[in-house]
């Protein structure tokens, strides 16, 4: 079974039950998995390949999707599906053939309602994923502000 951050800490049996809720989806190289602003109904775990998370930027009068993060097998993408207002806040594209497990919000909620301990553990794992992202971007933001301060004071 795929080792993933989302079911970290679950027993093999519980992890297997969560894993079984996922539907496999294959993305060809260059295919888009999710798009900024779209309704978020599914959360994804990467089984194989890689995903580029991008945000649009204006570069010399061109709108360009600029890389903000990369995700690899075992990592979770699309947690906006579990957090209101359930809209994706970035775009995810597969730079090469990539396989993901798609978990619908409804299926996860139903499963967690029946197994609260599993729901608690997965929620904790999700909080870790979100927390890591927060720390990463908070620190990147401070570094950028520091550079702006240095440029202004130069």
């Amino acid at each position, binding site marked *: 079974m795929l080792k993933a951050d989302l079911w970290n800490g679950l027993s093999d049996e519980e992890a297997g039950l969560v894993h079984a809720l996922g539907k496999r989806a294959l993305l060809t190289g260059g295919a888009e998995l999710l798009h900024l602003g779209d309704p978020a109904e599914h959360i994804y775990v990467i089984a194989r390949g890689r995903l580029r998370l991008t945000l649009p930027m204006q570069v*010399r009068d061109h709108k360009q999707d600029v890389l903000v993060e990369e995700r690899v097998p075992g990592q979770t993408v699309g947690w906006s599906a579990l957090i209101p207002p359930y809209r994706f806040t970035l775009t995810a594209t597969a730079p090469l053939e990539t396989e993901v497990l798609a978990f619908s919000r409804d299926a996860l909620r139903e499963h967690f309602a029946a197994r609260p301990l599993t729901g608690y553990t997965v929620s904790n794992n999700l909080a870790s994923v979100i927390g890591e992202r927060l*720390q990463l971007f908070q620190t990147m933001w401070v*570094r950028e502000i520091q550079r702006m301060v240095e440029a202004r004071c130069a």
Partner: protein
Amino acid sequence: MEMLLMGACLSMFGLAVTCLAFGAATRTAAAPEPKLEPVKAAAPSRFFVQQVPLEILLMQIENHVRLEQAAVESFLQTPTPDLLHSRTMSTFIN
């Protein structure tokens, strides 16, 4: 009569002084203006400044993001003020 002549002399003297002053003022105004350098010559020409191709610029941004993430992850492993603002080899900002 003498007073009249004296007044006339003084008037002529005053007129002469006024004429001299006017002449001097007119010469100053008519003096050739200092030669101005054409603006184009003074400003650095941007037309010939070679821009980094868009693809290269995007690669630099992407590389910068990766280096920043690596630097940040290093900080998050061992949070210290020095590591928070550690420098990278990013060509995008250096």
